[in-house]
Structure formats: structure tokens, C-alpha cells
């Protein structure tokens, strides 16, 4: 075994601080709280009651399932919407333009999530840009209700997360030798076959890593479901928020937080298994 110098231990300090103070200790504290329960005699005891609340009340686990399904849906949508863009920017147009166009794509990130959400409100509300336009050209007689629905929430979540899908996908596509596509075509593959047999398998690590980021961002988002989803769209993060800040039941909040963590980790794990990817490979 090689002897470690003082630099090795010095460089370890920020890593340990980050992992320990910011991640491990808070999580252990949350885990501990989630099993604490206040009895009717104002006594704190260990109990599974916080978790049982989740299963006993229908609204909680219905929101839970809805959050999971919508997050998966938005992730898939993000792939469908961004793939053609990524392909166009990396394979169709030259390097000269793609750099500039990619920069344009990133602008919404600089503005911030909250501002872009308000932007969508201007577009989607009853007297907003889209409804006014449709009314003007006579396509509809009365405004379509788009804001504060699952639709507006999905749009918002998609818009917020698309960029995190396109960046890893573009880097995967960028590293792909164009002659692979030509070789497949030369060997008799149709365009669809080239897409399915060559491009998708090649870019799978990029797609999966983008997918994981998008999924995590969406399932843990609070701003978009609250503002664009309004009252009709419940999101599990809102339940957690309510537990902590409305009913001041930190123990139940902690339990719900842990359930969300387990849920998202499980779905990511399943996605990795299904796509045959390894976490370390996707992460790099």
C-alpha cells in the first residue's frame, strides 16, 4: 500500500464536509425524525405511525402515484421533444451554427425558473397570448382553460427540464462517428432501422443520464406544480411542504420525504436495469 501524503488528507476535507455535513447527517436526522411520533400524552416515542398515515389516507398515496406517473411521462416527453433538436444540432447543421444555437437554448436557465413560469402564465391564461390569438383567427369561440390544469403543469415541467435532457444527449450524439450512420445505410438499413439499431443504442448512456436528471428535477419540483398546476394539480412535494409548514408536523414530513426518496431511487434503479446501463457509466 502506498503511503498517502498530507495533500491526500487535505483534499479529503471538502469531500467529507460536503458528503457528511450536507448529505449524510441531515438524512440520518430526517430518518430518525420520521420514526418519532408524539402520543396523546405529548410524549415522543418510536413508531411507524408517520408511515401508516401515508397508507391510511387515500389522498396521500394517490398524489404519490400521480407524481410518479407524471414524472415518468414528462421524462419520456422530454426525450421525444428534445431528440430531434439534439440530432439536428449535432448531425445536420455545421458546428459553426450549432454552438450559437445551443447557447440560445440555455437562455431560460439564466433567467430562472420562477420568471419562466410567470412567462408561461402570460401565454396560457384565459386572456393570454394563445387564447387571444385563437379567438382572433376564429378557431375558438370562448377561451380554452389551460392554466392551473395538469396540462399547464406538464408544459411547465417539460420546459424547465428539457435542457437537462438535451445537453447529455447532444454530447452522446456529438461523439458518434457519422460514418456509423452511413455504414448502416450502406449495409441496407432503412432510416427507422438506423435510428433504432444504431443511434438509440449508441446514445443510450446519454439518454439515460439525461433522463435521470430530468426525472429527479421533475419529481422533486415544487414551483411549477404549485404555480402552474394550481389547486387542481396536487404534487407530492406540496404534501411534504404542507406537513412541514402548514401543520408543523415535521415527523410526518420527514417520513413523506423519505418515501419520495425511496420512490425516485426505485424508479431510477428500474430504469437503469431496463436500459442495461450501469450507474457509474451513466454518471460519467
Amino acid at each position, binding site marked *: 500500500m502506498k503511503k498517502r501524503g498530507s495533500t491526500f488528507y487535505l483534499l479529503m476535507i471538502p469531500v467529507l464536509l460536503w458528503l457528511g455535513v450536507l448529505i449524510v447527517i441531515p438524512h440520518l436526522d430526517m430518518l430518525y425524525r420520521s420514526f418519532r411520533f408524539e402520543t396523546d400524552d405529548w410524549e415522543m416515542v418510536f413508531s411507524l405511525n408517520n408511515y401508516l398515515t401515508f397508507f391510511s389516507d387515500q389522498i396521500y398515496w394517490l398524489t404519490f402515484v400521480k407524481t410518479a406517473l407524471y414524472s415518468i411521462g414528462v421524462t419520456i416527453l422530454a426525450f421525444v421533444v428534445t431528440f430531434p433538436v439534439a440530432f439536428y444540432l449535432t448531425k445536420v447543421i455545421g458546428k459553426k451554427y450549432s454552438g450559437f444555437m445551443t447557447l440560445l437554448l440555455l437562455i431560460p436557465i439564466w433567467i430562472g425558473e420562477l420568471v419562466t413560469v410567470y412567462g408561461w402564465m402570460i401565454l396560457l391564461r384565459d386572456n393570454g397570448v394563445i387564447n387571444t390569438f385563437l379567438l382572433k383567427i376564429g378557431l375558438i369561440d370562448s377561451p380554452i382553460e389551460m392554466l392551473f390544469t395538469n396540462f399547464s403543469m406538464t408544459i411547465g415541467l417539460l420546459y424547465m427540464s428539457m435542457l437537462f435532457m438535451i445537453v447529455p444527449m447532444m454530447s452522446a450524439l456529438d461523439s458518434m*462517428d457519422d*460514418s*456509423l450512420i*452511413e*455504414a*448502416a*445505410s*450502406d*449495409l*441496407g*438499413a*432503412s432510416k427507422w*432501422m438506423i435510428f433504432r*439499431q*444504431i443511434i438509440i*443504442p*449508441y446514445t443510450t448512456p446519454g439518454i439515460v443520464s439525461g433522463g435521470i436528471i430530468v426525472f429527479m428535477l421533475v419529481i422533486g419540483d415544487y414551483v411549477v406544480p404549485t404555480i402552474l398546476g394550481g389547486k387542481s394539480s396536487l404534487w407530492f412535494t406540496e404534501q411534504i411542504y404542507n406537513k412541514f409548514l402548514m401543520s408543523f408536523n415535521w415527523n410526518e414530513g420527514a417520513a413523506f420525504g423519505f418515501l419520495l426518496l425511496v420512490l425516485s431511487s426505485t424508479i431510477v434503479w428500474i430504469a437503469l436495469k431496463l436500459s442495461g446501463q450501469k450507474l457509474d457509466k451513466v454518471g460519467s
Partner: protein
Amino acid sequence: MSYVLEIKNVTKKFADFTAVKSVSFNVEDGGFFSILGGSGCGKTTLLRMISGFEEVTEGELLIRGESMEGVPPERRPVNIVFQSLALFPMMNVEKNVAFGLQRQKIPKNEVSSRVTEMLERVGLVGFEKKNVNDLSGGQRQRVAIARSLVLRPSILLLDEPLGALDRKLREHMKIELKVLQREIGTTFIYITHDQSEALVMSDHVAVMNEGKFEQIDTPKNLYKNPATSFVAGFVGESNEFDIASYAGGELITNNGCKLVKPGLDFQPNKLFIRPEAFILDSPETLPDVALVKTEIKNILFDGANTKISVVIKESADKVLISLPQNAKYDNLHEGDDLQVGIHRDDLKCYRD
């Protein structure tokens, strides 16, 4: 003899330049045909037109007598071995080779028997399940060739596939490719900038320059009788001289060296002489041989390619001469005088 490929006055124009200028040639079935040229001469564009990745601007391209106009790459009886090989990294050897067959809806057992047969041909038995990234350069080469040949194309196009290999392996693959082509009998069209690859492997070589063919010939004729000054300078090594005047069967170089070359019906301005055409220590009695007195300036040792750099005494022309590595010439030194002879047939004259 039937032609597998006929190219008639084919021109390719891009937005701002013409890559291929009215090229015509035919390739015989079962031959090994090379297109030799420097980078940017249009050889890759020509190859991409044959494979269907580029459209022909003008002219006609026929494969086995059928016009290929509007036929996409996936439907042409032609396959390419790419410069980068373009093996599919997410598939193993077997799947790479089977890829083309699977696209043709061929029954599964026939696919696997043809793949096995092809892998035997190229000597890759036992590598079926290996990932292509785990193979050596030569093995990857053979996978790429097998992947194309398994489809039994009319023509196999090879786009400088040996470029990325190291020298030793390249020498080896040259011979291997030629043997493989003989065995299988498929027509090979080979694109290269490496003249040695073209000369060793081909039945016919076309030398391409600025979008045009300078000469199509057998490797031996190409070397022995270059049709143009470009070919003379490009294929093999040559000493190049500018000719100042030609009168009465006597050439005079710009530096004043006089050489006898009777019977030219044009006024030449370029002269090429191969380094190995010089006869060292030439006896005075050989017919049609001009004798020149020189002084050795440098001995450029390079094994079998060793050359001496000499200066012609009467004219100060500098010349490179091949020096055989045998006992007879071991005692030559820099500064020695050396009389060399040149046969008049080895003086290649051109008018540019």
C-alpha cells in the same frame, strides 16, 4: 469481358468547386482497381458517388449495366469499408457481420451459417462474441471487410482502410487483402493516397489529380511509363529536371547538363529520372547509355532504400541515386567521384 462498373463522363459539382471533372472508366468484374491520389483530388467524392452517398451532377454511373441514378445507398449492390471502419461499438463481432443480412429478412439459420462462413474466410473463428472494441487493429479491419463481403456485393469499396494501422501491420494487411480478393473474386475498388498500397495490390490503378484521371494502367506500366509529368512525379520517386532546350536529339537542363534523347516529337520542358535508373560505375561500352561524372555529397542510409545524393560535375544538378546495399558499394564515401550511366529509355520527358 463484362464490366461491373461503368463510369461515363461523371462530374460532381459542389456549391463553390468541382470535385470530379468528367471522369470515365470501366472496372472489370473480379478485378482489384485502385484510385490513387493526394488529399483533395476528388477520390473520396468519386467513391461516395459509387456508393450512393453523393449524387452525380453530370454523367452516368452503371453497375452491372444498370443505371444507378436515384438508387439510394441501401439499395445498391455495393458496400463500403470506411476509413474509420465504422464498426458498431454496441454490437459484438457476430452481430456486426450479421447486421446487413438481418436487414434483408433472410432466415435466421441462413444468416448464422453465412456469418460463420464469412468469419472462417477472414480468420476470425472464435471471436464471434467479442466486443469489437477489444480487437486489434488488424482484426477490426477484417470484421469491417467481413461485414461488407457477407452481403456478396458486386463491388466492395475500400476507403483507405489501412491508413490507421501501424507500418508493420499495414504491410501485412496489403498482402492479406490481395489474397482475400483473389480467393473471393469480388471486385475491389480501393481508394488510397499510398502508392505502395495501390501498386502492390491492384490489377489496375487510376492516378487522380484535381478531379481528373491522369492515367489508368497496370501498376507496372504506371511506374515504367508514366503518361504525364504528374504521374511521373507522384508514383514512385523521381529526380525532376527543368529542360532549357531540346534540339537535334539533345536535352539541356536548366543547369546545363546535356543528355541524348533522340526521337521526341514535341518540345519537352520536364525531365524525370528514377533513382534506381542510374547505373553505378557504368562501363563505357553499354549501348544507348549516357555517362555522367558526379561527386557524392551525402549518403542517406535507409536500409534497402539507401540513396546517395550526388552533384553532376558539369552542371551542378543535384540528383538522388539508389544505392544497393551490397559489398560492391560499401566502400563509397562522401566526396568520392562516381561515374554513372543513364539509358536513354529511362529519360522520361514531358511537356506541361
